């Protein structure tokens, strides 16, 4: 405690909460790397001539030699060791990046395995453990990869290689295989956002060029997401993978295969239940909407899925769900709307009466959306009875005046839409409430009777065969 000493002795302030941030500016130390076991002796690499300094015939061989040299790894946690050689490798990598960008005719068959080997040696590693036990991606600084000066160039080199005009997937597929892709996907868990960004481009290129790997990549992404949702709740690259998926989904042929629909319902929808949804919600919502634009008949399962995973306690997430739902409603077909309007508006009616004003407000904003308004209007005879009770009740008792005002507008809109039904509902409001209460009492009666019956049976069969 320290507030007694430092809190200002303000006398007239009624609000007693001192709002000073205790969180100290965190010293930035976040650097880590699991790549290197300490080496005992200093590393020596033979300095090779520059590629541009040798004749065209000699270049391919020198290129291979340089690739082999770049397989040597350095300890970046020790900032003092092998400085010269680290610099040499850096400049060599730079040279290789330039070389694959501008040269022609360098890509012989022998170079493929060497390139893949060099890339594998450098990027594949067990990722370092997260520094704090409960790493919170929203609050904490990510741990940056210490060996980034080299790693970045390796990624850049690999991307240029994949994008090169001479690149032939038919040869490369021998080396860029399932195992390679699997290791690549595991790296998406890297805490370093720069690395994830490079990986995104790499994976995108591979997906684009290797038709034979596409199904495998999708399946492995499935596995990562399922593990994330149901087991670990931890994976740093969800947003990046979803971004790639967004463009993959865009390219799906119609009609959609069962496999893709399954992916939507069994993987993408459950992702909504993740605690860290805010980190990838935009990308996820994009994927969902992509699916619906491809195939509107998926609207019903998607909305039912969202309703199933609707947040119970987290208001921030509820606001995100409402945002996504609005995106979906923006593209919904009227025939689909009719199919889900009842469960949908039951949920919206709960949101509208949420004591959390941001949730209520977000839901009430739907009435500012012209397209949604037109859908509501067409179906007002169904929607109005669902919404009426909560609107009517909340209009009188919500604590937040802004919400009350919004509700008033909504009620007004309903009145204009269907005044006969509105008047009828207003007139029967009280008796409806009483009927509900009666129903509730009947329920309780039923259960009481059932329990009596159970008790009686229990006594009858006192030898205890009734399981409890």
């Amino acid at each position, binding site marked *: 405690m*320290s507030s007694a000493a430092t*809190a200002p002795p303000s*006398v*007239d302030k009624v609000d007693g909460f001192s709002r000073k941030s205790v969180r100290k500016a965190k010293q930035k130390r976040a650097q880590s790397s699991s790549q290197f076991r300490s080496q005992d002796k200093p590393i020596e690499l033979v300095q090779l001539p520059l590629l541009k300094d040798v004749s065209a015939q000699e270049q391919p061989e020198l290129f291979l030699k340089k690739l082999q040299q770049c397989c040597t790894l350095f300890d970046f946690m020790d900032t003092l060791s092998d400085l010269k050689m680290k610099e040499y490798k850096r400049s060599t990598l730079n040279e290789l990046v330039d070389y694959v960008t501008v040269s022609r005719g360098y890509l012989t068959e022998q170079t493929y395995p060497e390139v893949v080997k060099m890339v594998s040696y450098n990027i594949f590693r067990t990722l370092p453990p997260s520094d704090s036990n409960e790493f919170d991606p929203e609050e904490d600084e990510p741990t940056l990869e210490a060996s980034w000066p080299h790693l970045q160039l390796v990624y850049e080199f690999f991307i240029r290689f994949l994008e090169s005009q001479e690149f032939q997937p038919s040869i490369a597929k021998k080396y860029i295989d399932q195992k390679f892709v699997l290791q690549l996907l595991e790296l998406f868990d890297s805490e370093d956002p720069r690395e994830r960004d490079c990986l995104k481009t790499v994976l995108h290129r591979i997906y684009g060029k290797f038709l034979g790997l596409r199904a495998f990549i999708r399946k492995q992404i499935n596995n990562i997401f399922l593990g994330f949702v*149901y087991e670990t709740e931890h994976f740093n690259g969800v947003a990046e993978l979803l971004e790639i998926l967004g463009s993959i989904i865009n390219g799906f042929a119609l009609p959609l295969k069962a496999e893709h629909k399954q992916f939507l319902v069994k993987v993408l929808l459950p992702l909504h239940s993740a605690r860290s949804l805010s980190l990838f919600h935009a990308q996820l919502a994009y994927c969902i909407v992509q699916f619906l634009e491809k195939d509107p008949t998926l609207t019903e399962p998607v909305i039912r899925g969202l309703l*199933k995973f609707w947040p119970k306690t987290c208001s921030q997430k509820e606001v995100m769900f409402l945002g996504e739902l609005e995106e979906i409603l923006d593209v919904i077909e009227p025939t689909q709307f009719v199919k889900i309007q009842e469960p949908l508006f039951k949920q919206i009616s709960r949101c509208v009466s949420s004591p959390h004003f941001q949730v209520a407000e977000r839901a009430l904003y739907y009435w500012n959306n012209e397209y949604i308004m037109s859908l509501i209007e067409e179906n007002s005879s169904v929607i109005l009875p669902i919404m009426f009770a909560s609107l009517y009740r909340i209009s009188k008792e919500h604590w937040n005046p802004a919400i009350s005002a919004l509700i008033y507008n909504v009620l007004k809109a309903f009145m204009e839409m269907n005044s006969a039904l509105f008047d009828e509902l207003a007139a029967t409001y009280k008796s409806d409430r009483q009927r509900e209460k009666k129903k509730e009492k009947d329920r309780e009666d039923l259960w009481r009777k*059932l329990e009596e019956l159970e008790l009686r049976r229990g006594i009858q069969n006192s030898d205890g065969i009734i*399981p409890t």
Partner: protein
Amino acid sequence: MAGAEGEDSLYPIAVLIDELRNEDVQLRLNSIKKLSTIALALGVERTRTELLPFLTDTIYDEDEVLLALAEQLGNFTMLVGGPEYVHCLLPPLESLATVEETVVRDKAVESLRKISQEHSPVDLEVHFEPLVKRLASGDWFTSRTSACGLFSVCYPRVSSTVKAEIRQHFRTLCSDDTPMFAKVLELDYVKSDIIPLFTALASDEQDSVRLLAVEACVSIATLLPQEDLETLVMPTLRQAAEDKSWRVRYMVADKFSELQKAVGPEITKNDLVPAFQNLLKDCEAEVRAAAANKVKEFCENLPEDSRENIIMTHVLPCVKELVSDTNQHVKSALASVIMGLSTILGKDNTVEHLLPLFLAQLKDECPEVRLNIISNLDCVNEVIGIRQLSQSLLPAIVELAEDAKWRVRLAIIEYMPLLAGQLGVEFFDEKLNSLCMAWLVDHVYAIREAATCNLMKLVEKFGAEWAQNTIVPKVLGMANDPNYLHRMTTLFCINALSEACGQEITTKHMLPVVLKMSNDQVANVRFNVAKSLQKIGPVIDSNALQTEVKPVLEKLATDQDMDVKYFAQEAISGM
């Protein structure tokens, strides 16, 4: 159960099913939890023909509801008419066993395992085994995962041809490429087949599979006779302890005590001691922390004849290095167990070897380390007494008491009563009392709350007289604080202290202050006055209650603030 059929028909299935379909999840959940009552009302016949088909068809619901359903169905045998009809429960459970949510699936498997015991051998082959096969060859991973959990229950009770089929399924699943799948596999076994499969898993390319093989290592080692361990398990274990992935090594460290128990004293001495040393010196902090956590348990479980020798020559040198580790998690893991070593090593060794380490850790820059040491003081107290440490303790406590993280402050508050008891009232009054009072005005509510509770415990320890002289005046003084949160703290303290202080102090000193506060301008203070009056009512003598408390409450009951009114009325009705 026959003879009650007429009564059962009183309850139309539709009404009951409506309950299971209620819009409100909570109500639906309640109904599912009382599913047995519903089944009872329907009778066995209609449970089989109407309720179960309904449940099988409407499996799409919230996971929480499904979980309750999966659990209920495991106890349903009698409700469907006994073992003869138990197979009726298979269809709904089969669907539940394919759900994505792991908790639901596991519960469904658990229930399936349970009711499998109630199947006759014939039913097992006719109904249960085909279900397992269907699950095992399902194309979505969930059903295959569930199948894994069922092999072991039906295997022993089926004919040898079916046994062979099951083994075949097991082998196919093991080579399945869904990693999630391999994770479950280790749980079950078929003894003759498991070792080669296990060895293959242990050298799998994905470290997430290898690390689960470590877990399996423990169960396999417990199962095998001692003489087979060396050839069948130890190579894998040694390999895992030096795996290139830190996650695998972490797993070894994490499971070390279990491994130690499973392999027995001889292998522990020859193999595990050096392995443990290596883990304590691992290059990855995560691994060192996991190993450090196990130091005490490892030492405790060493064979008695060589225990002290091994600790002194092999373990302690590593521990000494860890005390000054660069990583705070390692240090704090060590600090949470290191005190436990003193009971194992005895007084002399503790004073000579461990005490310097404790003192070093008490001065550590990381608050968690210090806190962990302080929270385990009782272990040392038993062996050498706390006095040896008191000089180093005080600065450590003071610093923790003012730590910037409120959770750290909270933790140290919780140890105050313990410390006070061990250090004595004099030491406490002189050095720690001011800290305890300062916490009452902390800007975090949880700290103020804990501080109040702490005062109560101290009063219980040191007595009412001590309270009257040292803390009551300070607490009551806060009633005039300009900050209403501090004024409320006075009320909370009074709530906590009144009972421990007794009638006299409460009526004479505390009550007037509370009554005066009923005129506070902040409504929150006023309704807390009402709450306090209700709380301390039983301690106050009845005369004061009628003449002083009641009029004040009656006045509060007419307050313009809704909450004040409510709590005043509550208090009056409770009088």
